[in-house]
């Protein structure tokens, strides 16, 4: 994938936000994650987590908490689109944990028999309308996506956020008139941040991570297209004990709170 410096901005913001939230709760973090690690004795070495790009902020924070509770353990991440990660895994990439942004890409991995145990849904993400600060297009809801006078971005139907948007349009009978179908959700968000589109259909977590340049408009129809995020420990995990500890941390009350703080939903 091409790296685009400007797109890193939301991720950095997300990290900063997650960092702020995390520091206040780090005492609690230490106690609970050390609780999970006592069973597996001391966790050391490196654990590699393949995770959907939308999890960048929260997972980086949770990884640091696990490292703090287990000196000697290094948590390493590969954040990318879930479909790219699934492809890398089926091509033999060495990893301990896979967290996908939708069931379809998790299915790719489980069909290849790469999992250890059953994938578990640990969080949900819901669509939201992102508009530039001040809402120049006076967007109020999903019906505005049919307004040809507005400049509209959606994700391409081939990527999960685009598939979810299509589901919303189909369920509401709205004939959307997008001006562009973006290659991923961050690209759609960037166009809102630059003020070049009046509205884009993205995830609630993206709106939250984007900071002040973007305003979010929640809409009731989004309930028809909720993305569930499954996580699984991989069969060939080089560091299975640490992998299970990370999965446990994500699903623990502490991990769930961190996800909630980043705008995710708890199932």
């Amino acid at each position: 994938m091409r790296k685009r410096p400007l797109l890193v901005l939301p991720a950095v913001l997300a990290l900063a936000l997650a960092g702020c939230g995390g520091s206040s709760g780090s005492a609690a973090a230490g106690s609970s994650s050390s609780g999970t690690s006592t069973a597996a004795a001391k966790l050391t070495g490196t654990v590699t987590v393949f995770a959907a790009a939308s999890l960048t902020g929260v997972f980086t924070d949770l990884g640091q908490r696990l490292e703090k509770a287990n000196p000697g353990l290094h948590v390493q991440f590969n954040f990318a689109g879930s479909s790219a990660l699934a492809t890398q895994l089926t091509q033999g990439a060495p990893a301990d944990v896979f967290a996908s942004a939708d069931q379809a890409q998790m299915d790719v991995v489980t069909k290849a028999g790469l999992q250890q145990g059953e994938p578990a849904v640990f969080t949900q993400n819901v669509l939201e309308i992102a508009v530039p600060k001040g809402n120049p297009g006076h967007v109020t809801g999903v019906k505005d996506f049919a307004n040809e006078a507005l400049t509209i971005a959606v994700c391409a139907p081939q990527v999960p956020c685009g598939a979810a948007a299509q589901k919303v349009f189909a369920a509401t009978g709205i004939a959307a008139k997008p001006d562009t179908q973006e290659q991923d959700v961050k690209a759609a968000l960037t166009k809102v941040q630059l003020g070049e589109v009046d509205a884009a259909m993205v995830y609630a977590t993206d709106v939250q991570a984007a900071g002040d340049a973007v305003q979010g408009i929640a809409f009731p129809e989004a309930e028809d297209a909720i993305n569930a995020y499954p996580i699984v420990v991989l069969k060939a995990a080089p560091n299975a004990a640490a992998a299970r500890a990370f999965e446990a941390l994500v699903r623990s009350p502490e991990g769930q709170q961190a996800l909630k703080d980043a705008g995710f939903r708890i199932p």
Partner: protein
Amino acid sequence: MRRRNGGIPLLLLLPAALGTLFLVLPLLGLLIRAPWSDIRQQLSEPGIGAALRLSLVTATLATAIALVLGVPLAWVLARTNLPGRSVVRALVTVPLVLPPVVGGVALFLVLGRQGVVGRWLYEAFGFSLPFTTAAVVVAETFVAMPFLVVTVEGALRAADARFEDAAATLGADRWTTFRRVTLPLVAPGVAAGAVLCWARALGEFGATITFAGNFPGTTQTMPLAVYLALESNPPAAVVLSLVLLAVSLGTLLLLRERWLGRSGVPAA
């Protein structure tokens, strides 16, 4: 052509063969992995024709603009003593080293609805360039024109300036000299630059998807279609890549035959 006998030295032949393999093997990979059995069905998918047509039209328009602006620019760089020439030369080649996605963002900042120039256009005429076919042409020209400028400038520097001097002593002004002497002299270089520029424009991805977005029929060129097909249907992406490859190779071979065929030597 003097030392035709004696064969090719091994020290040159070996790296040359390795280089060829390195460049050709990925293409072979495409050919081997192509879903030949249902290629007909993949090719009849709607949207491929539109994407191919859009790619060819925009790349050709971008090359035309690059010729109109780039050849005079190359001449100024090669034949004049304007102050700040070397700075200008460095600046116009910036798109060569700039990641295309950054180029796309930069275009937004100037020509976008909120851009320095674009804002004025939008407020005065309600005209917004991004997400239009024109934006595709702009993005491709931005990325591809430096290839033409660099090639033509090189050809101009290599060309014998005495012909131009002779024309001048015979009373031709600089414009007439340029039109009747310089341009025919560097025609192969201009052709090579145009082909290079066209090929680069045809394959342009980053600046296009950033500045022009992606919409079938309006801004979705072949490279964008390939990228998105890769997300959901990798075999279709391979087929699309082969189509783009065949069309660009065919065009380049055809043009080479016509423009450079006799000498076989690119540029002057």
